[in-house]
C-alpha cells in the first residue's frame, strides 16, 4: 500500500488506471466527470501514456475499439448521455471480444436530465445499452477507495474475459473527496494478446494474420458465436459475483438491497435502526452484472425476514432483478429518488419502519 492521500473521486479514478498499468485514455468532456480528462491530460504525458480528446463519444468508443484490438490496455470515462453514444461501440467491442474499460459517472436522465448524481443507468449498464446479446461486467463502487480498487481490478478482468468492463459510479463518487490509497498488489501486467490482436504479424513473429470482427453472416456461425459469448457471461456469473453483506447475522425483519452512494445512506439507516432495536439486514451488490442472485435469494428466505426493499437513486430498476431473485417468496418493494437528491437516513428509516412487515 502506498500512503493515504486526499483525492477527488474523478481524479482518483484516472490515477488508479495509471497505477493499474493502463496508459491509454481517450475521452470527451461531460459533467460530472470532466475532471478525469483534465487530470489525465497532465498525467498521461508525465508517464509516457496516450491522452486524446476525441470529437464525440461515438468516436471515442471506436478509438477504444481500435486501440484495444491492436493489443493495448485502454479506457475511457463518461457520463450517462455520453455512454448512450458509446453504446454502439460497446456492442461491437463485446461482439469482437476486445477488453476495454468504460467508466460511467451517472447523472440524472432521461435526455439531458440533470448533472446531479443518479443511478438511472442500471438497465443501460446491466441489461445492455447497445444492440444484440451482450453483457458487460459491471462493478459499482460505494467510495472513492473502492472506485480505485475496482478500476485496478477492471483491466485484468476485461482481459480475462476479452469483454468490456464497466465501472458504474454516480456523480457523488466522481465529485466527492476522500482519503485513498493505491494498492500496489492490484497492479497487473497486460496479458499476452498475440493469439487474437491485430498488433501486426511482425510484432508477434507470425505468418498468420489476425482479424478482429463481429460479422458472422452464416446463421450457424453467428449462433455458435453467441453461444461462446454466453459461456463467458455464465462463467462471470460463477466466478465474479462480489457483494458486501451487512448485519445479516441476526434475526433481521427486513432485507435492504442497495448499491453505490445510496448504500452508504442505507447503511447509516440500518445502524440507526439497530440502535433503536430494529433489526434490518442488507446486501450491497458490488457487481451488478453478475448479480448476487443466490446470496439475495438466501438472505431473503431467512425465516425472520418478512420483506425485501430495493433502495436506489432511480425510479425502480434494480428492483426488477431483486424480484427475480426473491421469486415471490417475500414481498419486494422499491424506494428511491432520481432528481439528483440523495434520500436521507431519516427518510430511509421512515420507509423501512412503514414497510418492515411486508
Amino acid at each position, binding site marked *: 500500500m502506498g500512503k493515504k492521500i486526499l483525492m477527488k473521486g474523478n481524479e482518483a479514478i484516472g490515477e488508479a488506471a495509471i497505477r493499474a498499468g493502463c496508459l*491509454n485514455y*481517450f475521452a470527451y468532456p461531460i459533467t460530472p466527470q470532466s475532471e478525469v480528462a483534465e487530470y489525465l491530460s497532465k498525467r498521461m504525458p508525465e508517464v509516457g501514456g*496516450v491522452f*486524446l480528446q*476525441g*470529437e*464525440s463519444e*461515438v*468516436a*471515442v*468508443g*471506436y*478509438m*477504444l*475499439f*481500435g*486501440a*484495444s*484490438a*491492436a*493489443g*493495448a490496455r*485502454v479506457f475511457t470515462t463518461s457520463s450517462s448521455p455520453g455512454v448512450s453514444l458509446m453504446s*454502439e*461501440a460497446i456492442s*461491437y467491442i463485446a461482439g*469482437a471480444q476486445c477488453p476495454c474499460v468504460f467508466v460511467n459517472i451517472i447523472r440524472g436522465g432521461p435526455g439531458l436530465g440533470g448533472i446531479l448524481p443518479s443511478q438511472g443507468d442500471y438497465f443501460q449498464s446491466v441489461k445492455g445499452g447497445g444492440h444484440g446479446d451482450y453483457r458487460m461486467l459491471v462493478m459499482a463502487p460505494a467510495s472513492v477507495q473502492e472506485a480505485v480498487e475496482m478500476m485496478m481490478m477492471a483491466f485484468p478482468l476485461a482481459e480475462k474475459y476479452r469483454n468490456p468492463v464497466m465501472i458504474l459510479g454516480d456523480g457523488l463518487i466522481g465529485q466527492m473527496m476522500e482519503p485513498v490509497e493505491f494498492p500496489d498488489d492490484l497492479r497487473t501486467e497486460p496479458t499476452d494478446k498475440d493469439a487474437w490482436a*491485430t*498488433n*501486426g*504479424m*511482425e*510484432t508477434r513473429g507470425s505468418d498468420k*494474420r*489476425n*482479424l*478482429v*470482427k*463481429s*460479422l458472422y453472416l452464416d446463421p450457424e456461425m453467428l449462433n455458435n458465436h453467441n453461444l461462446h459469448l454466453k459461456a463467458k457471461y455464465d462463467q462471470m456469473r460463477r466466478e465474479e459475483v462480489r457483494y458486501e453483506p451487512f448485519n445479516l447475522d441476526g434475526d433481521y425483519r427486513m432485507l435492504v438491497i442497495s448499491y453505490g452512494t445510496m448504500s452508504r445512506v442505507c447503511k447509516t439507516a440500518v445502524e440507526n435502526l439497530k440502535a433503536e432495536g430494529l433489526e434490518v439486514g442488507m446486501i450491497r451488490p458490488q457487481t451488478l452484472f453478475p448479480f448476487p442472485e443466490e446470496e439475495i435469494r438466501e438472505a431473503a428466505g431467512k425465516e425472520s425476514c418478512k420483506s425485501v426493499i430495493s433502495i436506489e437513486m432511480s425510479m425502480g430498476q434494480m428492483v426488477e432483478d431483486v424480484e427475480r431473485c426473491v421469486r415471490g417468496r417475500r414481498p419486494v418493494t422499491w424506494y428511491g429518488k432520481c432528481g439528483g437528491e440523495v434520500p436521507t437516513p431519516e427518510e430511509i428509516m421512515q420507509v423501512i419502519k412503514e414497510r418492515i412487515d411486508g
Partner: protein
Amino acid sequence: MGKTFKKPEALTDAHTHYCPGCTHGVIHRLVAEVIDELGIRGRTVGIAPVGCAVLAYNYFNCDFQEAAHGRAPAMATGIKRVRPDLMVFTYQGDGDLASIGMGEIIHAANRGEKFTTIFVNNAVYGMTGGQMAPTTMPGQRTTTSPMGRNVADVGMPVQMAELLSTLKTPGYITRQSVIKPRYITRAKKAIKRAFEYQMAGKCFSMVEVVSTCPTNWGMTPVEAVKWAEDTLLSYYQLGEFKTPEQEG
C-alpha cells in the same frame, strides 16, 4: 524463367464477392501491390468499412479490423495513437465515409492522424441495394431517388477531397480513378505516395478513387465506365488537392 506477373502477397487466394465490372478488385490490388513494394505487410493493419467492402478482410493478407458504419477513422486513430509504428489504412465507401462517417473523417484529418484512407466513391450505396448517397449526382436515379437526385431537396453532391483540403492541418489529399488503365497507373502512384507519407510519420493521407457500380447504376460495365468518365469525372475532378509540403 521466373514469373513476371503474380498476385501480390498482400492479397489472399479468396475469390471476391464483387459484381462484374466493379472496381473494388482493382483498388484492392493496387493497395496490396503498394504494401508489397514497401515491404510493410507484417506491420500493416487494415480497417474494413460497412458497405460492399465489408468483407475486405477476407481478401487482404494482413491484420484487419472491421469497423461499424463510418467509424473506421476513429478506430484507425485508436491504433495509431497506441502503436504509431504500425501502418494503418481504412478502406471506405461513399455512404460510409461521406454520410454516416463524415464527423470521424473530418476530425481524424484535422488532427493530422498518421493513417491512410482509401475512399471509394461510386456515387451510390452499393451493398444495401443502390440507395442515394451524399455523392449521388444531380438527377441520378437511385432506389431512394427514383425521380433523380433533386438538389433543391437534398443539396449538391459532397466533394470530399475538396472539403478535406480546406483544413489547415497539413495532409495529402488526392482524387484518382481506376476506370481506365491510364487512371490506374496514376492511382497506384498516389496510393504509394499516401503510404509513404504515413511511413515517414508525416501526415494524414486520403486517396479518393472515383469508381463504377454497374449493378446499382443499371448499366453494363462498359456503359458504366462511359457514364463515370462523362458525368462523374467532370464533377469529381482528378488531381492532387493538398500535399503536406504546401503551406496550410
